[in-house]
């Protein structure tokens, strides 16, 4: 039994009085670990709610430094952080927010060579990356390692997210998108851009999925792609099935080794 301090009982009191969390649920959160890949628009809101919730160990992966253009949406990074490593900036805020959380930082890119050993250390993975090579790498590595994860993407006024639990009879990201888009087909930089709140909405949903998975409560977004259109203020859940001939999660997968796809010059 976890030995809660008086301060912890106060800090987590709104969780503890919640029927579906309670002392047992809070103990699960405090003894669990979540890896957040990408500490930007999606990763920072996810990180701050997971930290506040008392996730015992949070891993942060990002090789980038904070830029002025990040501050419009990456809410854990503040003006004095410009130029600092994003993982360092996020770690400082999490430490100030909740001393119960152990933060481990990885200030390099994940590749086919190192991703498996990193994700193995965690109970749940959040994909907060901004590019397709990373999204396919995370999906494939998590399927191979049997690691549950939350996928998300955002652009302009739209966002989407799904949860993948390998080993269940539910689809993976590659069931929905069999191959990355060809580098030449992605929109040009001037067509990109994203409304600042979008990562907050979708990243917070990703954190919610991580918490529900750890608590073992409710229904996850497995087999469903949740799409959000902020202009229409419309949420939709699209039902998705596992693809029998999926390259990675089918019984006899075509892909047996991780792939480092080429990064386009100006991806989304």
């Amino acid at each position: 039994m976890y030995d809660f301090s008086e301060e912890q009982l106060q800090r987590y009191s709104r969780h503890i009085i919640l029927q579906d969390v309670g002392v047992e649920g809070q103990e699960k959160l405090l003894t669990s670990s979540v890896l957040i890949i990408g500490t930007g628009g999606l990763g920072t809101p996810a990180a701050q709610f997971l930290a506040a919730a008392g996730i015992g160990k949070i891993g942060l992966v990002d090789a980038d430094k904070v830029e002025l253009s990040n501050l419009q949406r990456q809410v854990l990074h503040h003006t004095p952080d410009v130029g600092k490593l994003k993982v360092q900036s996020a770690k400082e805020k999490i430490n100030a927010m909740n001393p119960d959380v152990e933060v481990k930082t990885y200030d390099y890119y994940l590749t086919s060579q190192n991703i498996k050993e990193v994700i193995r250390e965690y109970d749940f993975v959040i994909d907060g990356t901004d590019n397709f090579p990373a999204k396919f790498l995370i999906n494939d590595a998590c399927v191979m390692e049997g690691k549950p994860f939350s996928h998300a993407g955002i652009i302009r006024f739209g966002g989407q997210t799904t949860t993948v639990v390998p080993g269940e009879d539910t689809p993976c990201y590659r069931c929905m998108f069999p191959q990355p888009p060809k580098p030449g087909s992605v929109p040009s930089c001037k067509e990109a851009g994203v409304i600042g709140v979008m990562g907050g909405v979708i990243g917070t949903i990703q954190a919610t999925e991580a918490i529900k998975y750890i608590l073992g409560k409710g229904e996850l977004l497995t087999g469903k792609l949740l799409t959000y259109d902020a202009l229409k203020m419309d949420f939709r859940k699209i039902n998705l099935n596992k693809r029998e001939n999926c390259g990675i999660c089918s019984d006899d997968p075509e892909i047996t080794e991780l792939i480092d796809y080429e990064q386009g010059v100006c991806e989304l």
Partner: protein
Amino acid sequence: MKIKVNGEAVELEKELTVSELLVKQDVDMPDMVSVELNGEILDRDTFSDTVVKDGDQVEFLYFMGGGASVRF
């Protein structure tokens, strides 16, 4: 005939292939779209010979990255 595209009713004069439907629905970046027809994700190389029929439910799934990264 009537079909549903991303949950909304669409009236078509005749049966169309998935490729033709992508054009008709004015999808501006068809290479960035995955297509689900009645619950099954289609292989991209079948778009031009898969026909959408009356009552079908079509979902266009859009590739979304992070919306953010501009690498110089």
